[in-house]
């Protein structure tokens, strides 16, 4: 069970949240990409071994959308890699 820190409510239990999927790279302009690159962006779901940035929705709380970094090896919430986490 995760303890997720909501920017409005503070630390709350995972059961109050809904998983919103990993954060994807910015949407590319399909007119400037070939089919393979466009298909890759549409269908590829980041699933690294290690830290992954995810979106969560505080659906049973204040309604805020937030992002966290979670380590897929330990299920721990970690700091963003550029923060030294």
């Amino acid at each position, binding site marked *: 069970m995760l303890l997720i820190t909501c920017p409005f409510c503070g630390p709350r239990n995972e*059961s109050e949240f809904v998983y919103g999927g990993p954060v994807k790279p910015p949407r590319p302009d399909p007119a400037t990409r070939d089919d393979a690159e466009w298909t890759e962006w549409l269908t590829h779901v980041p699933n690294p071994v290690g830290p992954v940035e995810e979106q969560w929705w505080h*659906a*049973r709380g*204040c309604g805020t959308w937030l992002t966290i970094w979670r380590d897929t090896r330990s299920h721990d919430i970690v700091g963003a890699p550029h923060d030294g986490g």
Partner: protein
Amino acid sequence: MSHDVTITPLETQALFDLRGPATVLRDWAGDSLPAFPQRPNTGSSNGRATLMFLGPDHWILRADLAREDAFEAALRPVAAPPEISIVRISDTLAFFRIIGPEAGEILSIACPLDLHPRCFGHDAASFTAAFGIKALVIRCEGGFELAVDRSYLPMMTECLTAAAG
């Protein structure tokens, strides 16, 4: 094991959902609202109503049902400026009052909130999950009040009764 609590369904409350910047809402509503709470998940009262700060730019105004028409007239939801939203939601939530020495035990069965007074103080109010569904929990004298979507009223009655033993 039975718990020393009293669980009482409350009558319908006058409720208004307020969204938008506090400054605009304050200007629009004038002195008809209690002071806007500054800390998230707290409420403030002025004797006539309670205003709860439940999300970013999101408040719920609560009062006795007898005051509903007066607040509707004061808040003028239909004429509100586009930056804010005021919606009467009195019919949407069903309230329970759970009081007694072991009220906290029932709430700790129902929801994952940290109910210690240091985290959930005398003026606390927050949305959370109760028995798996979205619920509004408010601390009150001697215990807590719990509000859920009205369609969950029979389910919540059963769950609270079972939890109380």
